[in-house]
């Protein structure tokens, strides 16, 4: 290959790496101090770009100089920093104590709100920003032209790294950030004003996100899809580098930038999957990223975020359960076709959510990629029915859980070796790889178009009959999973979650047991996916998307992680609010995001958790 080309291609990769680092450094610092995985970091990046295309042209109208351009970029970044402060004071400050997953959910609510606000303020059309004066041209490098602006960007990343290092080493604020990253409890013990530290950290993180966004305006138009397209990549960078490690983020950015630049020469279609493949490989080899540290295990007994005591159903609960089942069975008789349709959907989602909570609630295995098993089940069913085998629905519904279980066996083998946020990120990586495979393997999966014609067998083709098929299978699967939670298998899973050391010391093979649980949950999700596919008549990659995984998490969180039956309520509730807001307005995501935040703030234990708490309080008052 031409050496000049290699140099220029490397420079392109490094310029991208530089931008990626600026954004990811903010994410990793915020995580290090607050332990919040901030989904809204991408939204802050997007706001940086939008504020950039708003502020910079005004300044350039005054004076068309590079000074004005960069003054505008800095102003935009500062403004985003202040938005970060606002977010900390109004929202994050109230949720440091709530379970980690809820924090994540709350920041996802912010993502939805910002998406619609941006659309409302700036409109849905992409807005191209101005180019930087004096940096519009290309520079000749070994006979090839390379954009001057990217040459400039090449230096910004390292400059940010140097400044951050100085900040961390030389200032009190920086020392506190480092201390908090290493041991959060220690900072509290030192009597540091935690609120100020956290607010300052959020300012810094948001500033960096805003800076990253504003610096992009000469290259990419401000658009409403920027947030989610950057956030996954920023997550990947922070995870590969080691969460909380700024130098790690720098190294990871370089690797990703160069890999992208040269990877597309060899595998032009690898673009979708490359970064996630890299993340999966790194996590399998180095479970805490390149420069991260194992998460310090708490030196005291902390109650896990999940199912706690298991009370068997009392008479009241039995009655409620029976009533629910009866009401369910009456849906096709009493309701219209649409109600039946919604009923089928909720049942399938309820099973998927229940299987997810089997992992999260009982096993402490937080999966961000549960849609993979749901989707694989759906695809297995769909492809068997439509593909060359032309299997009937009955066979496909047997294959769906098998496929989900097999995929879970494969991915789970690696997943259960990790813990905490790294485990969650590996599940996400596997889900994204699955997504990319189904998205790109068009000859078999139909690519993003998916496959149509996935309808039930003739005897079950009537909506009501299919409803009963789904009800029977979903309820049976849920009852079975519930039984497992109450059986020694489930107790052992909880034991491994509560204390892996203790479990190991009483002869429990923790890893294998978690792996088996992963397979069980994957199989149940696969069945749910199969049932869902036949209700829609088609399958497509959105069934495996991050959005679907997040939906499942929303269901179990809004229902209540600590409760066995919460996910079922959550599935119904979540579906209901979406169903309510969607036909109402184009800006339904705003209201959905708002509802999520309200739930997190008002019911940190979920809806069923709140009911339980209320009942306990009542019982106390009666007793007292």
């Amino acid at each position: 290959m031409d050496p000049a080309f290699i140099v220029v291609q490397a420079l392109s990769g490094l310029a991208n790496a530089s931008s990626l680092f600026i954004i990811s450094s903010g994410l990793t610092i915020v995580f290090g101090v607050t332990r919040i995985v901030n989904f809204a970091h991408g939204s802050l990046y997007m706001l940086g770009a939008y504020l950039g295309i708003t502020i910079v042209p005004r300044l350039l109208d005054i004076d068309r100089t590079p000074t004005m351009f960069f003054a505008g970029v800095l102003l935009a970044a500062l403004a985003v920093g202040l938005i970060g402060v606002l977010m900390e004071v109004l929202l994050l400050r109230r949720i440091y104590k709530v379970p980690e997953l809820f924090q994540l959910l709350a920041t996802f609510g912010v993502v939805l709100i910002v998406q619609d606000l941006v659309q409302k303020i700036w409109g849905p059309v992409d807005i191209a920003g101005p180019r930087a004066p004096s940096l519009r041209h290309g520079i000749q490098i070994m006979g090839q032209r390379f954009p001057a602006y990217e040459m400039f960007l090449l230096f910004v990343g390292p400059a940010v790294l140097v400044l951050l290092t100085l900040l961390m080493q030389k200032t009190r604020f920086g020392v506190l950030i480092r201390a908090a990253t290493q041991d959060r409890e220690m900072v509290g013990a030192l009597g540091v004003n935690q609120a100020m530290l956290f607010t300052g950290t959020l300012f810094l993180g948001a500033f960096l996100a805003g800076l990253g966004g504003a610096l992009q305006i000469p290259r990419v138009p401000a658009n409403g899809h920027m947030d989610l397209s950057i956030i996954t990549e920023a997550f990947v960078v922070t995870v590969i580098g080691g969460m909380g490690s700024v130098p790690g983020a720098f190294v990871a950015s370089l690797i990703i930038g160069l890999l992208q630049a040269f990877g597309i020469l060899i595998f032009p279609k690898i673009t979708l999957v490359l970064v996630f493949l890299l993340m999966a490989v790194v996590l399998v080899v180095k479970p805490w990223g390149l420069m991260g540290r194992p998460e310090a295990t708490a030196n005291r007994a902390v109650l896990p975020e999940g199912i706690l005591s298991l009370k068997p159903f009392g008479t009241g609960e039995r009655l409620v359960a029976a009533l629910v089942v009866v009401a369910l069975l009456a849906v096709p008789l009493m309701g219209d076709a649409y109600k039946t349709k919604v009923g089928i959907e909720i049942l399938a989602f309820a099973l998927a959510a229940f299987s997810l909570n089997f992992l999260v609630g009982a096993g402490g295995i937080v999966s961000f990629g549960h849609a993979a098993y749901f989707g694989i089940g759906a695809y297995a069913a769909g492809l068997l029915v439509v593909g060359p085998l032309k299997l009937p629905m009955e066979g496909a519904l047997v294959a769906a859980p098998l496929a989900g279980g097999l995929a879970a066996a494969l991915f789970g083998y690696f997943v259960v070796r990790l813990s905490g946020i790294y485990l969650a990120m590996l599940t996400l990586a596997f889900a994204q790889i699955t997504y990319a495979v189904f998205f790109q393997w068009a000859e078999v999966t139909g690519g993003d178009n998916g496959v149509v014609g996935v309808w039930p067998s003739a005897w079950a083709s009537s909506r009501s009959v299919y409803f009963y098929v789904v009800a029977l299978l979903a309820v049976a699967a849920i009852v079975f999973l519930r039984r497992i939670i109450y059986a020694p298998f489930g107790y052992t899973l909880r034991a491994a979650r509560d204390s892996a050391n203790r479990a190991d010391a009483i002869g429990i093979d923790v890893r294998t047991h978690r792996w088996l649980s992963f397979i069980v949950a994957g199989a149940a999700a696969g069945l749910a996916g199969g049932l869902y596919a036949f209700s829609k008549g088609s399958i497509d990659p959105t069934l495996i998307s991050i959005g679907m995984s997040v939906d499942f998490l929303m269901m179990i969180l809004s229902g209540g992680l600590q409760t066995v039956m919460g996910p079922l309520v959550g599935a119904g509730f979540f579906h209901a609010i979406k169903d309510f807001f969607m036909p109402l307005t184009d800006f339904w995501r705003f209201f959905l995001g708002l509802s999520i935040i309200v739930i997190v703030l008002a019911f940190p234990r979920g809806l069923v958790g709140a009911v339980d708490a209320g009942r306990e309080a009542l019982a106390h008052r009666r007793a007292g």
Partner: protein
Amino acid sequence: MLLSVQGLQKRFGGLVAAKDVSFDLAAGELLAIIGPNGAGKSTTFNMVGGQLRPDTGRVMLAGEDVTGLPPRLVWRKGVGRTFQIAQTFVSMSVVENVQMALISFHERTRDLTADATSLYRTEALAILDGVGLTEMADRSVSELAYGDVKRVELAVALASEPKLLLMDEPTAGMAPRERAQLMELTASIARARKIGVLFTEHDMDAVFGHADRIVVLVRGEIIARGTPEEVRADQRVKQVYLGETGVQAALKARRAAQA
């Protein structure tokens, strides 16, 4: 001999954490490993329990080589253990913690249908009775005082009818009165059931009050061993570890125990 440790060695990078550590432990005997911080007590302990694999050396349990086996398999051979910071299943009740150990002991962890809340409950209650926790059986572990949590751990460790108990600083973090109670309880159970107990401890009352024999580790090496009296009298031990006040305390503890 119940436990025979022969020439254990462990390095972490350039640091020698344990060097030619050998000792024996008989059934029904209480053996304490003492030494300053970083002396290699926990390293030695974890090599016996299976949490660490030694570089060289052997661990023999009742004549069987268990070197390098993972903890769960060491447990299967009849070794129960407690941790420096109590490790229990905090989402479960006291009796469920013990039931969990029994479920594992009877190899039913993968049972998908039985009702775990009633499984082995009677046996578990009997074990709790042995450590004086009957009244707290149905309370959640997360609500208990720390001393009681330690006793839960002991009950869990006893559930598998072990031949050997490994206790890493059993009284750490407890009030003085609770410490004595726990050590007395341990000693009486061990002697009654012929269980060997290997424990590390910082608390001199616990060591000199209850151990039959003591091994002193400093910088990974055994510098002295013998009965409490012998160790107390050892000049090197006095020099590098106990100091004068420590010896006085040890003496007091011994007297109190004999009285």
